[in-house]
């Protein structure tokens, strides 16, 4: 279905951006802080890749689990649960890495922030570059036309316009 295309594109764009930041960060970190800088940049890129993939991945998982039913509470449970899980993992990673001897904190911080900010930019590019269709609306209108019921008139009116102001 077309509504998953934007999320799949966001997922891949975000991962590509995180990889690019890890690569550039590894080169710069290697020059500035030696081996510790390279390791910190790669860890920063991995954390950002995890963050990005969880954002789009939980939406895709929610859509798949609810079988494209946007009214299902499971959809929001998956997205908001994934959000909490993501922060739990991030906090755990920070606790473990904060005092690790092979981590250069400044390089790690800059790489995480750069990758996450740029991956949000990649999300915007991915979403804006994807055309959304009103497939659900067409289906509802066709169903209403095929089998008119007392409630179908308002459904049909809503597909065409302005928020249910019709009688």
């Amino acid at each position, binding site marked *: *279905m*077309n*509504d998953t295309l*934007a*999320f799949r594109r*966001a997922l891949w764009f975000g991962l590509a951006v995180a990889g690019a930041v890890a690569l550039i960060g590894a080169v710069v970190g290697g020059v500035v802080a030696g081996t510790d800088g390279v390791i910190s940049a790669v860890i920063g890129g991995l954390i950002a890749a995890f*963050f990005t993939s969880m*954002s*789009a991945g939980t*939406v895709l998982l929610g*859509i798949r689990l609810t079988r494209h039913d*946007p*009214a299902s509470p499971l959809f*929001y449970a998956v*997205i*908001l649960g994934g*959000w909490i899980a*993501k*922060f739990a993992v*991030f*906090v755990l990673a*920070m*606790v473990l890495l*904060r005092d690790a001897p092979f981590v250069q*904190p*400044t390089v*790690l*911080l800059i790489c*995480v*922030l750069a990758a*996450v*900010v740029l991956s*949000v930019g990649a*999300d*915007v590019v991915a*979403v804006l570059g*994807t055309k*959304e*269709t*009103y*497939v*659900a*609306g067409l289906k*509802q209108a066709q169903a209403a036309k095929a089998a008119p019921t007392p409630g179908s008139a308002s459904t049909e009116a*809503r*597909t065409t316009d302005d*928020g*249910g102001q019709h009688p």
Partner: protein
Amino acid sequence: MEIVGNLNTIGYGLAAIGPGIGIGIVAGKTVEAMARQPEMAGTLRTTMFLGIAFTELLGLIGVALFFIG
């Protein structure tokens, strides 16, 4: 009276207020819009994703600065 503790904790607590309110508004308004116009659910969900991405970015910066800054 002596106050002890880590200032970063207070900083993160303050930094979490905005994203917390923001993500609640994003999810709540999307549910409201889907209830009004169910046929727009696909488009709304995509736009909600962008809102969530921007909102959680602020939270992430707060957490990162809390630990590393």
